[in-house]
């Protein structure tokens, strides 16, 4: 290209340098030729400049790439503090306290057809602290994240310290895989993985109390996989020790295991949803004790279960957030259904002669709730709980003493709450329950504060 222009230019310049004639026309031609010549020279010059520019651009690109690489190296070194706003580890404290009023004696609380274990119950009357949680978390390095949560609470006049969570988790293992190792809240159900301070009501749904004694947690390993799909699809499996309620007793290395699947997505900009299925199972449970029927048999007769247990669950969550503005009006609907089948024997420990029965457990329950943020800072919530037990065994009397017959009663509960959030770190909630868990209906009132200080909490779905 350039060669051709140069050739042209040369030809033209030789033309122009011919001796001038006297004719004015020749002068004009010469002038025109001069103009042409200078135009071409300009264009050639411009082209040469462009060529040089391109070459230097290329060099610049290489230099820039080197620069980026260098920056990345530096970024890698400082990666952990960039991700966590300078606190390492991130520390947060949840302050939770309440004032409660019950119509019935909280000691008399029971769920007919469900042998209560774990932390099931409605707590203390009057002023009391809930769970004071202290959580530490951080990216340990570029491969692992770690978290430990200690919950301090009062139980029968004694301060108990409980290690709720202590786990490590892989970061960006690739292909959508994440492995968690240690003590953690199981991925079964929807509410189970959330901390109590993230719940929308002051107490756990009845079915969580009845089946898990508040929640399902254990030591073990969890592998989860997020599929490479437009629609959210997550599959997970857990192998657990099986030492915690509702498993229990001594086991082989793996005492319980679970599977879960979640599907979810958005509908337009205003709606989002998630559907979950989960399964939990523990075989060869030995000596799982629970609180018995408080007004039957001796007080020290403790029901103990041996056998196999299996839980299936489904959960659905839907959120409506107009224009995606979570600060303004929004609505959250939530539904969970659980079903537990058990097969084994129930023995009343400390009874004499030792009372025992075969046991074929069939327990189920669900709750549905709606929480509506009607204006910034203010939320209103309604919840309905219902349980159903259809357990059978060779000795009905033993079942009844163990609290495993439904006594012709279907536990249910209506709850309403209103809460005020001064900021996303503080909340004051007022809640009323019409509790028909057992024969004597109960009116329960709660005034609760839940405040968090320290690192910024996560906005989970």
């Amino acid at each position, binding site marked *: 290209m350039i060669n051709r222009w140069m050739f042209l230019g040369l030809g033209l310049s030789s033309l122009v340098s011919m001796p001038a004639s006297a004719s004015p026309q020749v002068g004009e031609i010469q002038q025109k030729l001069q103009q042409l010549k200078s135009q071409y020279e300009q264009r050639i010059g411009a082209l040469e400049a462009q060529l040089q520019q391109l070459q230097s651009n290329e060099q610049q690109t290489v230099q820039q*790439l080197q620069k980026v690489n260098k920056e990345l190296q530096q970024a890698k070194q400082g990666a952990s503090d*960039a991700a966590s706003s300078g606190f390492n580890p991130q520390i947060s404290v949840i302050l939770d306290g309440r004032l409660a009023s019950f119509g019935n004696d909280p000691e008399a609380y029971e769920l007919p057809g469900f042998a209560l274990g774990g932390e099931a119950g409605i707590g203390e009357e009057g002023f009391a602290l809930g769970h004071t949680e202290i959580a530490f978390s951080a990216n340990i390095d570029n491969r692992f994240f770690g978290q430990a949560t200690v919950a301090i609470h009062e139980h029968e006049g004694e301060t108990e310290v409980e290690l709720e969570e202590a786990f490590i988790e892989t*970061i960006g293992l690739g292909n959508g895989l994440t492995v968690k190792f240690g003590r953690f809240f199981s991925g079964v159900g929807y509410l189970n993985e959330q901390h109590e301070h993230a719940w929308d009501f002051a107490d756990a749904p009845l079915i969580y109390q009845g089946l898990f004694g508040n929640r399902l947690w254990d030591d073990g390993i969890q592998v989860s996989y997020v599929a490479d799909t*437009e*629609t*959210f699809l997550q599959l997970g499996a857990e192998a657990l020790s099986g030492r915690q309620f509702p498993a229990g007793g001594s086991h082989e290395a793996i005492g319980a295991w679970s599977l879960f699947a979640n599907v979810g997505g958005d509908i337009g900009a205003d709606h989002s949803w998630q559907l979950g299925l989960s399964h939990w199972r523990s075989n060869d449970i030995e000596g799982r004790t629970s609180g018995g029927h408080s007004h039957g048999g001796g007080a020290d007769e403790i029901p103990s279960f041996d056998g196999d247990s299996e839980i299936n669950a489904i959960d659905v969550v839907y959120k409506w957030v107009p224009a*995606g503005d*979570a600060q303004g009006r929004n609505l959250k609907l939530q539904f969970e259904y659980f079903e537990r089948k058990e097969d084994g024997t129930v023995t009343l420990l400390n009874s004499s002669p030792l009372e025992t029965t075969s046991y074929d457990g069939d327990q189920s329950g669900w709750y549905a709730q709606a929480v509506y943020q009607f204006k910034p800072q203010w939320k209103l919530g309604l919840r309905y709980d219902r349980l159903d037990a259809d357990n059978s065994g060779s000795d009905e009397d033993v079942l009844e003493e163990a609290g495993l017959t439904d006594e012709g009663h279907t536990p249910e509960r209506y709850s309403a709450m209103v809460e005020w959030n001064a900021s996303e770190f503080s909340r004051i909630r007022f809640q009323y329950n019409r509790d028909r868990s057992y024969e004597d209906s109960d009116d329960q009132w709660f005034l609760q504060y839940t405040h968090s200080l320290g690192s910024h909490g996560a906005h989970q779905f």
Partner: protein
Amino acid sequence: MMRLLFRLSLLLALLFSAGARAELNVLACEPEWGVLVEELAGDRVKVSSATLARQDPHHIQARPSLISKARRADLLVCTGAELEIGWLPLLLRKSGNGKIQPGQPGNLIVTEGVELLGKPERLDRSMGDVHTAGNPHIQMDPQLIAVVAEKLQQRLALLDPDNADFYGQKGAYFQTRWRQAAEGWKKRLQSLQGRQVIVHHNNWPYLARWLQLEQLATLEPKPGVAPTTAHLGKLLTASQKQLPDMILLADYQNDRAARWLSDKTGVPVVKLPLSVDLGGSLFELYGEVVERLLQAAR
């Protein structure tokens, strides 16, 4: 039966189809960075944004659709400076995607290496929802847009070296047009120099610096805390002594407090877009901002 099964599996495959992949999947935390990527990379990338222009990017949840987007992303472009602190760390953890983790080429935090305005002198939540790193709303400074565009162009070239030349050309073309446009806007808004403004939330320090506006006060008593009657009363008294020229707020913010003050003082309320959705462009965004400011100044 076989046919039914076949149809079912086809349906499932469609529902969860990975789809025809563009070269790079880019997830922008805010749409302004998404449109910038579109500008710089055209059809060589597939861009999605975690938030919409009218959303406050601070108040987002790590919802399922975002986890699956993060899982599929080759490049994550976010503001940083704690703007996404409530949900981005969770998204990164749940994604199981190594490419977009901090320190990887697929993780670009645009405020990193930028001198941010408004670093708090004191870190205390009684001061409201303060950003320790400084004010993150840098998209309102054309010079910083140019800086981010250059970073983006380099990062795209690094991740997709086959198209490096393409990104280089696109980048150079954008920079030229952007420089010219920015000069034009500045010229048109020359008359605004030294004007005094009250803002709803501290979204505009970069715009104020660019146009040499003077910010007198915020309607929010503290960042992230809704305007209170007491605070508005104080502002009214102050405004009556020294009348501001306009009240600025983002178009997604509640304008009740601004309208109240405007009614009492006659100072015009100017609602400005803070971002622009995918498919739009930053030229459009700035054009709109300039038009609305000019209208108010008249």
